[in-house]
C-alpha cells in the first residue's frame, strides 16, 4: 500500500501498463517535455525517461528543425497543437494494434476532435461489424477551476449519449489507478474524465481537494459499471460523481448531526452505468437526489432520473431532486463560479428538504 495523489495513481497505472504491454503508448500536446509540465497536470511527466519520447530523442540528437523519425523505441509522443490529428492518430493506431493513451490537457478541447471521437472512434467497430476495433483511451481533465468558460466544462453528458464510447470518471487514487488500467486493457474507446481539483499533483489550484488515498502495491483493476457506495445511509440516496460526491460527503456529515442519514453513491463509470446499485439504494431510502457539476438540461442525471421513472417509479416516495450547474456557461469570477457549481451548503439544503418530504 502507498499513499498517492490521483495524478500519481494515473501515472503509476500508465507506467505499469506500458511495461506490461508494448503496444501501449502515450500521446498528446506538451507530452513529457523535459523541464515542462507533462500534459497540463503532470500525469505524463517523466515517462519518456523509461519509454523514450520523441521530444527527448530529438533534443538529445541536437535535432532542431524536424521531429524525430524513429518511433520504435519512442512511446511518449508529443504532437503539434492539432486535436483532430491527435484523436485520429489514436483511432488509426488502435485499429492497427496499438493502445494509445492520449492526454488532452483540458476536456474542453474534446470539441475540437469531436468528429474523430463520435463519427470515427465510436462507430468504427460497429460499421465494420467488428472487423476493426479501437482500443484507445482519451484523458480529459474537467471541472471548473477559475479559468473561465472555455476551460471549465464538465463534459460527461455529451459523451454518455455516444453509442460506442465508454465514459468513466474516477475520483479516488484507488479508482484512478484501477480504472485507468481497466481502460487501457479495454478493447474500445474509453473517455476518462479527471477532475482538475482532485489531481492533488504539484500544481496548486484554488479550491482543490486532497484526494490522496491508498493504492495497493500489486496489479489490480477496477471494473467498469460498478458504482461505489461512498457512505451508507437510509434516508436519502445521493448519486454524485467526481468533486460532487466529496461535497456530498461533507453535506452528509452535517445532516448526520440533524439525524438525517444519506447514502452516497459514486457511479465511477457513466457508460456502462450501474443502475442496480442505485435501485437497491432507493429501495431502502425511497428518495433520490442526483448531483453533478455538468449542466442541468440533458445532464447525465436526467438519464438516471428517467431510468428510475421508467423502471422503478414505485420505489420513489418523493420527487427526484437534481442539483447541477445551471444552464449557463461557467463564469470566471470565483464568486459566480462558486454560485453556479453545487456547493456543500446547497447539497445539504436540498437533501434536508428531500429527507423531510
Amino acid at each position: 500500500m502507498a499513499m498517492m495523489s490521483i495524478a500519481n495513481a494515473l501515472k503509476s497505472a500508465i507506467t505499469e501498463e506500458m511495461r506490461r504491454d508494448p503496444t501501449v503508448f502515450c500521446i498528446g500536446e506538451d507530452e513529457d517535455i523535459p523541464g515542462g509540465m507533462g500534459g497540463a497536470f503532470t500525469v505524463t511527466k517523466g515517462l519518456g525517461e523509461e519509454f523514450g519520447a520523441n521530444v527527448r530523442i530529438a533534443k538529445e540528437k541536437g535535432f532542431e528543425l524536424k521531429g524525430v523519425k524513429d518511433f520504435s523505441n519512442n512511446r511518449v509522443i508529443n504532437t503539434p497543437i492539432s486535436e483532430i490529428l491527435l484523436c485520429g492518430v489514436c483511432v488509426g493506431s488502435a485499429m492497427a494494434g496499438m493502445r494509445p493513451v492520449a492526454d488532452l490537457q483540458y476536456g474542453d478541447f474534446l470539441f475540437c476532435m469531436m468528429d474523430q471521437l463520435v463519427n470515427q472512434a465510436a462507430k468504427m467497430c460497429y460499421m465494420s461489424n467488428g472487423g476493426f476495433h479501437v482500443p484507445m483511451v482519451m484523458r480529459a481533465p474537467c471541472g471548473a477551476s477559475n479559468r473561465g468558460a472555455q476551460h471549465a466544462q464538465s463534459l460527461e453528458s455529451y459523451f454518455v449519449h455516444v453509442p460506442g464510447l465508454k465514459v468513466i470518471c474516477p475520483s479516488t487514487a484507488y479508482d484512478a489507478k484501477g480504472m485507468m488500467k481497466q481502460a487501457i486493457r479495454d478493447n474500445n474507446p474509453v473517455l476518462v474524465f479527471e477532475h482538475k481539483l482532485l489531481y492533488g499533483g504539484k500544481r496548486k489550484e484554488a479550491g482543490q481537494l486532497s484526494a490522496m488515498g491508498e493504492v495497493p502495491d500489486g496489479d489490480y483493476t477496477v471494473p467498469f459499471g460498478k458504482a461505489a457506495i461512498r457512505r451508507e445511509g437510509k434516508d436519502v440516496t445521493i448519486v454524485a460523481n467526481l468533486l460532487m460526491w466529496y461535497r456530498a460527503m461533507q453535506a452528509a456529515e452535517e445532516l448526520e448531526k440533524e439525524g438525517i442519514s444519506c447514502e452516497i453513491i459514486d457511479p465511477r463509470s457513466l457508460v456502462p452505468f450501474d443502475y442496480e446499485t442505485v435501485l437497491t439504494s432507493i429501495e431502502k431510502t425511497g428518495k433520490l437526489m442526483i448531483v453533478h457539476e455538468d449542466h442541468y438540461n440533458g445532464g447525465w442525471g436526467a438519464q438516471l432520473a428517467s431510468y428510475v421513472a421508467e423502471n422503478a417509479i414505485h420505489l420513489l416516495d418523493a420527487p427526484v431532486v437534481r442539483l447541477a450547474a445551471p444552464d449557463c456557461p461557467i463564469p470566471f469570477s470565483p464568486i459566480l463560479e462558486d454560485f453556479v457549481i453545487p456547493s456543500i451548503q446547497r447539497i445539504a439544503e436540498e437533501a434536508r428538504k428531500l429527507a423531510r418530504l
Partner: protein
Amino acid sequence: MVTFPSNEKALGMYKTMYKIRKYEESIYYLFLEGIMPGTIHQSTGEEASAVGMLYDLRKDDWMASTHRPAGHDIAKGITVRAMMCEMFGKAEGCCGGKGGAMHTGDASVGAMTANAIVGGNLPIAAGAALAFKMQKKDNVVVCFFGDGASNEGSYHETMNAAGLWKLPVIYVCENNLYSANTSISLTCCQEDVAAGRAEIYGIPSEVVDGNDVLAVNEAAARAIARARAGEGPTIIEVKTYRHGGHSRNDACGYRPKDEADYWIDQRDPVKNFRKVILEKGIISEEELQKEEAEIEQEIDDAVEYAKSAPLPTYDSALENVFWEG
C-alpha cells in the same frame, strides 16, 4: 517515360480496372431499377488511380478510402460478392450489412473501413502508419482523398504531422475537379490542390495523369519504396474525372458538357489501357473478350447471389457496438 510492366501485371491491372468498371455499372443499373437501397458515390472513370496505386501493395499493407470507395476496395482485394452483399444490406456483406456503400472495408485484406466524413480518414491513416512504424514493420498505408478534402482542417493537421514524423503513408489526392457540385477552382487558389500544398509540410509530391494506370503505378512504386525505407510520406495528386454524378441523384448540371465529353470519350482509363495492351500484343482481342466475359459473369453472379442472400438478423443490429472479438 514509363517502363512497361510484365504482360501478366499489365493484364492483371487491366482486369481489375475492368472489374471495377463493370461493378460500378451494375450498381448504377440496380439503382435505376430501384432495387438497391441507399445512395452511392461511384468511381467510374477513376479506375486507373485505384488500380495503379494499389496493385503492388501487399495484403498486409493498408488502404484508407472515402465516400467513393468501391474501386479502392476491389483493387485492395475485397470480393465483388462481399461488396455487392453489403450494397444490398445483406449479412454476408463485407460489413455484415451494417456499413453500407460509404463504409465498405475488410480487415483481412487491409481495407480500412471507408470514411464518409470528408477528410476523416486522413489522420486515421496516419495513425495506422505510426503503428506500423512503432511495431517496426515495413508496411505502408495508402490513403485516398478528394480535391475537396484538401480544404478540411484535418488535412492540414495530418500532413504536418505525417511530414514531421516521416510516417510510411502515401496520401493520394484524386483530383476530379469537383467537390460534389462545386468546381475546385472556386474553393482553392491552386490547380494542384494537394501537390501544390505539400512542400510546406516537407513532404515530396508528384502530379500524375490519373487516367494512365502505368503512370500512377510508377508513382506508386516510388512512394511505396520511400515509405518502406523509412523515408516518410509522399503526396500524389492524380488528375482524373468521375464519369457520373457526385451521388445517386446528381445529373451533373453544373459541369460543362464539353469537359465531360472530353474526359469520358478521350480520357477513359479503361478503354485507353485496353487499346494499349492489345497494341502491345499482350493478349488477343478474342482472349481479352473471354477474360472480360468472365469478369462480367463474376459480377452477375455476385448480383444474383446478393439479391437472394440472407438478411442480417435483428440481433446483429445490437452487436459490435463494443467489440465482441
